[in-house]
């Protein structure tokens, strides 16, 4: 693989930034994603991504850092969904669907206005499909702060969140402040979706949230290991995706690099497919089985 080193992969500053931001975002998305998949809230995650698209494109229009727009949109969306959550699940699905439709409509308007004003098509590309090679220093700092906040929230609520994912009644009876834990988790989800939108684009951000978590949940029956496996899957997909996108610059004579989001999403999809392979399924089934030969010690 001499061509990788020849093309200056390891000396490029945008690549360094992309790898740092991408890995951080992959870790945050994986940690939150495991709980999102476990709670069956993939749809909520996707809806938040749509609402944060409106926020990001609106921020772009008024010359504010799109990351702040992504996160602000996500937080507002999360708050709205949590308030709707009081009612029945079916009504919640319907309301979420209608709200996300309106959010995408708003994003379409903002992107149109942004494009006509600046007379470039870069806005749509950047908001919808990510801009991991064009992240400036101040944005890196914001990414780091948001990531730390998100990981601290998840570390704090992990046990009550797990318990209320099993049964809200059981958690409430044990004295878990179920509403507060749910709100904190939605805040973490909004942050993760916002960060993921920056890295691979608003409409693809769910892939980084759900994909690695789904892969991990097939591989292990313990939540600690599932989180580690999801982080590894996410980070490897992002790093490989960045490498392939960087390299794709030389793939044809016109020197048009392919979008990094494409590679990341495809790699996650391939990882998911791999867990569907017959031998992987058999291994997962074996792990699920009650096997008296497995030693009981070695708790995390």
């Amino acid at each position, binding site marked *: 693989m001499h061509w990788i080193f020849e093309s200056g992969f390891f000396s490029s500053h945008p690549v360094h930034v992309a790898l740092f931001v991408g890995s951080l975002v992959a870790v945050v998305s994986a940690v939150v994603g495991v709980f999102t998949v476990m709670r069956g809230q993939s749809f909520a995650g996707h809806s938040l991504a749509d609402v944060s698209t409106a926020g990001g494109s609106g921020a772009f229009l008024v010359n504010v850092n799109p990351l702040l727009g992504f996160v602000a949109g996500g937080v507002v969306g999360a708050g709205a969904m949590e308030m709707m959550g009081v009612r029945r699940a079916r009504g919640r699905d319907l309301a979420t669907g209608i709200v996300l439709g309106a959010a995408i409509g708003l994003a379409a308007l903002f992107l149109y206005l942004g494009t006509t004003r600046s007379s470039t098509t870069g806005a749509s590309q950047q908001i919808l499909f990510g801009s991991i090679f064009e992240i400036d220093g101040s944005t890196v700092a914001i990414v780091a702060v948001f990531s730390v906040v998100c990981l601290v929230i998840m570390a704090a609520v992990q046990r009550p969140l797990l318990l209320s994912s099993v049964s809200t009644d059981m958690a409430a*009876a044990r004295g878990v402040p179920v509403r507060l834990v749910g709100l904190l988790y939605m805040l973490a989800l909004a942050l993760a979706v916002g960060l993921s939108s920056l890295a691979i684009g608003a409409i693809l951000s769910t892939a980084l949230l759900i994909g690695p978590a789904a892969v991990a949940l097939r591989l292990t029956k313990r939540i600690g290991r599932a989180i580690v496996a999801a982080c590894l899957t996410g980070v490897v997909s992002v790093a490989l995706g960045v490498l392939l996108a960087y390299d794709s610059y030389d793939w044809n004579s016109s020197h048009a690099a392919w979008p990094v989001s494409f590679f990341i999403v495809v790699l996650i999809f391939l990882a998911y497919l791999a867990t569907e392979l017959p031998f992987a399924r058999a291994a997962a089934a074996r792990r699920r089985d*009650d096997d008296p030969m497995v030693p009981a010690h070695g708790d995390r």
Partner: protein
Amino acid sequence: MTPPIHPEDALRELLRVEGVSVTLAGRQILENVSFGLRAGEFTGLIGSNGSGKTTLLRVILGLQRADAGQVLVLGRPNTGRNRSIGYVPQKVLLDPDMPLRARDLVALGIDGHRFGFPLPSRQRRDAVEAMLHAVDAERFADARVGTLSGGEQQRVLIAHALIGRPQLLLLDEPLANLDLRSGQEVVSLLDRIADEQQIAVLLSAHEMNPLLPVIDRIVYLAGGRAASGTTDEVVRDEVLSALYGYEVHVHTLHGRILVVAGPTEDPATPPDASLKVI
């Protein structure tokens, strides 16, 4: 109807429900319900679907406010978040993909309400191991909870509820969806636990017969009202007729109890057509 509370009774009583009434969405669910639970006793909370069993349990837990009356747990009003009550809710849906082993769910019973990271300790591990042994769940301790059978899941949920050393254990329809043998095993397990740990067990069910061999007392809910006492005191024509507000008859057949709505001697309709098994 409510017997006066004697000080010595109140001392032995772990739970006292006193004149509890609940109205939800304009419908009266519970009306002046009173009863008590004592240490080491296994009590069946019997009533048909929609009779208010779950609401009553939620009031005891402090998850539902009563419009009138009060609940005393160990002699003190329950403010919710009470560590002395263990709870197994109705229909806990455990997804097979949830990365949670039986032993993890039991461990959550110790500190699942705490924020931050758990400190792995030998004491914590031993407590989980002992609890798994107590409910005879060691065999499937390392399997995902979602892949276990209904009866196995109930044992794990019971272990989760018991590991916090509660003095009261409430179970909401734990026998629903269990085959007869698993149901029997769960019932005899609870009977043993109530006796060994001297806790009060309150188990709700729509069918009283599987419980008859083990329960010490019964709380019968119908029409929002409750009657409590031993099975012989409660399951009688006049007591149940008063609860339902219409005539019912109690029949005993090979040791099984059948509660049947009347009138049975109405000549205008054939008896079979008007029979309603409750």
